[in-house]
């Protein structure tokens, strides 16, 4: 790791003030940033730690409306009983991220702000039609995720929370990369009052995306059987030593089937 200056923020306003120094980065759980710094792939001059800002933590469930503070850990999302009642797909997703030790530190805000193409949360945000709340504005998930590790966030903008209305049905299925255990393909499907949404992570060569083919099929019938014979194009899918675009295209359909089955269960 290169040398770095650490700052601990006490409030969102304090964090915004501290981020102005040098080539600074916000630090939430650090589960992606610190490994990147260790291997010298990331080299911020300064880190502004959001981990001690009380206002950023916690889960509120009011009826079907869910608000999750940005520094809420994967562990806390996975184990929130109220959330489990209204949106078990999301708690299930959180329980699949990394390993227990990673889930104790990693946060939802950090995950979506980083927008790793193999991260789980972006698919949920997109499929849930979530709103990403920052210190400056509220953004629809559709406008938030911009490509590989790219989001609509400005340099001094902090994700403070995500909020969504729990849909009638939701399910997530993930096929992990055998080595890294990140999503090699993960599909989050929802059926809510605005219809069906299916978002795919781990597979797209430009990051998380909604699959037209899956959504069209599931709009007709929200059943796994509706996906029999459906194929998604492999053209814009990633290829690497673990999975070719064609294999990922297959996984998109298979994981979508399993996600729907889970949503209906």
């Amino acid at each position, binding site marked *: 790791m290169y040398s770095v200056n650490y700052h601990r923020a006490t409030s969102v306003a304090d964090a915004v003030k501290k981020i102005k120094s040098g080539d600074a980065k916000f630090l939430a759980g650090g589960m992606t940033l610190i490994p990147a710094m260790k291997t010298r792939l990331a080299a911020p001059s300064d880190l502004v730690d959001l981990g001690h800002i009380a206002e950023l933590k916690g889960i509120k469930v009011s009826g079907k409306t869910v608000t999750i503070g940005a520094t809420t850990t994967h562990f806390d999302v996975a184990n929130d009983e109220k959330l489990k009642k209204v949106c078990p797909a999301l708690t299930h997703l959180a329980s699949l991220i990394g*390993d*227990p030790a*990673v889930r104790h530190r990693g946060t939802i805000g950090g995950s979506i702000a980083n927008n790793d193409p193999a991260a789980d949360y972006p698919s949920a945000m997109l499929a849930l039609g979530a709103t990403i709340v920052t210190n400056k504005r509220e953004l629809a998930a559709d406008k938030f995720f911009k490509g590989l590790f790219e989001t609509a966030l400005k340099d001094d903008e902090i994700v403070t929370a995500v909020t969504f209305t729990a849909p009638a049905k939701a399910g997530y299925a993930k096929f992990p990369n055998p080595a890294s255990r990140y999503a090699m393909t993960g599909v989050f499907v929802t059926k809510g009052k605005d219809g069906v949404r299916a978002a795919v992570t781990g597979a797209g060569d430009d990051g998380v995306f909604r699959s037209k083919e899956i959504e069209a099929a599931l709009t007709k019938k929200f059943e796994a059987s509706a996906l029999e014979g459906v194929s998604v194009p492999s053209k814009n899918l990633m290829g690497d030593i673990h999975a070719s675009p064609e294999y990922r295209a297959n996984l998109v359909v298979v994981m979508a089937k399993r996600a729907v089955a889970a949503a209906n269960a």
Partner: protein
Amino acid sequence: MSEVTLVVNGRKVSGAVEDRTLLVHFLRENLNLTGTHVGCDTSQCGACVVHVDGKAVKSCTMLAVQASGSTVTTIEGLANGADLHPVQAAFKENHGLQCGFCTPGMIMTATDMIRRHPDGLDEATVRAELEGNICRCTGYHNIVKAILAASKTMSKASKSKANKAA
């Protein structure tokens, strides 16, 4: 440089470190607690697992300065004096270790796992929960056995305590 203050294994400690110092290096180099190991660069092997504020975390993926103010338990602080912790005892009884390098992280992970599953564990859960700990010697067979045995011992102990209290 920053001043780091922690409670480690029940003892208040502090030291000035470069901000880039990882918690694991602070433990190993400043406090000479070398039981916590580093086995990879990508937060996957789990040889570095310690408890921070009561939860298992990877000390290679946390800055020492980030942890400042926290309470840390390492493998050296797990036993109660001369008495082995039930998880340590179970690893020995069940031959849950060979070269010993991954063992501290395994034991800290297992202890956390058992704490989170007070009603007991099954083999599939143990195997799933070990995702973040890699062992190259044992094939996990006896590690799984050891954790299941420790879980049984500990839930029995806590039940009998609860019964006595009642």
